[in-house]
């Protein structure tokens, strides 16, 4: 007789770990399956950790979680070929006892989180790829793994197997990812002595800086780049919609090399030793691309459910929250001695709808379509802004009134007056 668990969780990323930990802590018998050598070895993220989502799961995570730096300064840069124009927000208030955001490295972080799952009584088995869901009619009753005799059964299966979400696709729970709904990001990590990181970014102790970047580096493709400070390293990367890569015919590592060579970036990473190169797909289709989130005996969470807020570069917090809410749904049903049928698991969807996860996705539901139809937000405007700054800052004998006229003229010439008004309206409508 095969062993049967209260719940099986597929994947040990933020969604899977949040789900497995929450259920194990509540006393449920939980099996978590991970295909990596250890949890984290298959997982890629920028990475920023948003404290709030984790605090609701492990309130004292700061005591022993492997955190790199707490973010005290956010820079937003819009790049032209040789220049950038940007804004900074830096506050000493972020130096509180309980900072809101941290940079992390996912391999050690996920391993730590998984340790918490084990300590709470969850059974975590690594180096095991789940190949199929076992179904009895429509109902998911277990999983098949690539280990011999690898069929395992449970009352409910939580799919947290990441963006490619092969299991749900194979089972017909949702369709194939579309290239326009997914961004391809590549990144590198460069190691530098701690004091070099501190002096280059004007920070002390474990303070950290993040830079979000848009403009010329994406060649007009819909996308952004980023640079994050870790304790003794810098992570930098760039991502654009896969449909745009396909159209442009550009290799992602070419963009990364150009980013590294940009005069605004190169001095920040100079002398660093590159120790890893990674790539990852990010589901950016938003609200309209979110698939069915539950069915008979299954729920889906995190990236595999497309729960990413691309506008605010948030994903892992949506993943952890969805994993927690899926787990709480199972716990509540167990307490009421109700089976994990689709009508009962609908509570999971209701809880997500009621949380920031779906509220935020709904707020920006039109944005992906608008960005697809208006690529000049990523090409024309960065150039115009940089040239406007350049014109105003060049002291060359031309009077300021004429300079303003030149700048206004350049905007109208590039986009026309109605184009400018239309762009402003579209952005307002998509983000209000």
């Amino acid at each position, binding site marked *: 007789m095969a062993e049967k668990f209260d719940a099986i969780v597929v994947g040990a990323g933020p969604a899977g770990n949040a789900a497995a930990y929450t259920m194990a802590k509540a006393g449920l018998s939980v099996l978590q399956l991970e*295909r*990596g*050598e250890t949890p*984290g*070895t*298959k*997982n*890629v*993220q920028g*990475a920023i950790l948003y404290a709030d989502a984790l605090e609701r799961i492990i309130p004292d995570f700061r005591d022993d979680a492997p955190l790199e730096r707490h973010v005290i300064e956010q820079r937003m840069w819009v790049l032209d070929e040789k220049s950038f124009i940007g804004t900074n927000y830096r506050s000493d208030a972020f130096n509180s006892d309980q900072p809101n955001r941290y940079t992390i*490295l*996912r*391999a*050690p*972080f*996920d391993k730590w989180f998984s340790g918490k799952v084990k300590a709470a009584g969850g059974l975590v088995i*690594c*180096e*095991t*790829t789940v*190949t199929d869901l076992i179904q009895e009619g429509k109902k998911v009753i277990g999983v098949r*793994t*690539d*280990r011999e005799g690898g069929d395992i059964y449970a009352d409910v299966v939580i799919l947290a197997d990441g*963006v*490619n979400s*092969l299991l749900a696709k194979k089972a017909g729970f949702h369709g*194939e*990812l*579309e*290239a326009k709904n*997914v961004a*391809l990001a*590549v990144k*590198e*990590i460069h190691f530098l002595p701690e004091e070099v990181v501190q002096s280059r970014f004007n920070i002390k102790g474990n303070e950290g800086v993040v830079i979000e970047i848009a403009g010329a580096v994406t060649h007009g493709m819909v996308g952004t780049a980023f640079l994050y400070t870790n304790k003794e*390293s810098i992570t930098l990367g760039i991502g654009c919609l*896969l449909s745009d*890569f*396909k159209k442009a*015919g*550009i*290799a*992602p*590592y*070419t963009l990364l*090399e150009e980013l590294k060579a940009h005069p605004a970036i190169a001095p920040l990473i100079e002398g660093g030793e*590159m*120790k*890893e*190169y*990674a*790539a*990852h*797909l990010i589901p950016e289709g938003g609200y309209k691309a979110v698939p069915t989130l539950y069915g008979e005996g299954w729920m889906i969470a995190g990236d595999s459910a497309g729960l990413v807020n691309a506008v605010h570069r948030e994903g892992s917090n949506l993943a952890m929250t969805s994993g927690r809410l899926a787990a709480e749904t199972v716990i509540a049903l167990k307490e009421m001695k109700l089976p994990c049928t689709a009508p009962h698991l609908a509570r999971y969807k209701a809880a997500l709808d009621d949380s920031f996860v779906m509220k935020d996705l709904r707020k920006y539901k039109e944005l992906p379509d608008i960005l697809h139809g208006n690529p000049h937000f990523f090409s024309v405007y960065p150039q115009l802004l940089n040239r406007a700054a350049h014109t105003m800052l060049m002291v060359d004998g031309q009077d300021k009134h004429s300079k303003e006229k030149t700048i206004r003229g350049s905007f109208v010439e590039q986009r026309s007056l109605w184009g400018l008004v239309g762009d402003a309206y579209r952005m307002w409508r998509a983000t209000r």
Partner: protein
Amino acid sequence: MIKIEEKLFQNRYRVDEGRPHIQISDPQVCADDCKTQSCTFACPAACYAKDEGGGVVLTTDGCLECGTCRVICSEYHNVDWSYPRGGHGILFKFG
């Protein structure tokens, strides 16, 4: 010229010798039908290369398991993609 091999050299892999986790379903489709061969430039690990006969050859050793080739081959669905056996493939040190 960027040497992608130098980037991949920094990574840790446990290659499942003789058991590639991705295969081109019908190589003839790449050679005869596919005009764009997007996989040959979009794959971030440059696993796909154009061959002399106008087709595409796949070497999965440096694969980062991102899924790009699977999603980008939308006209022909000619990429048979699965995850490597448990414990094999890319093993990120930092992620």
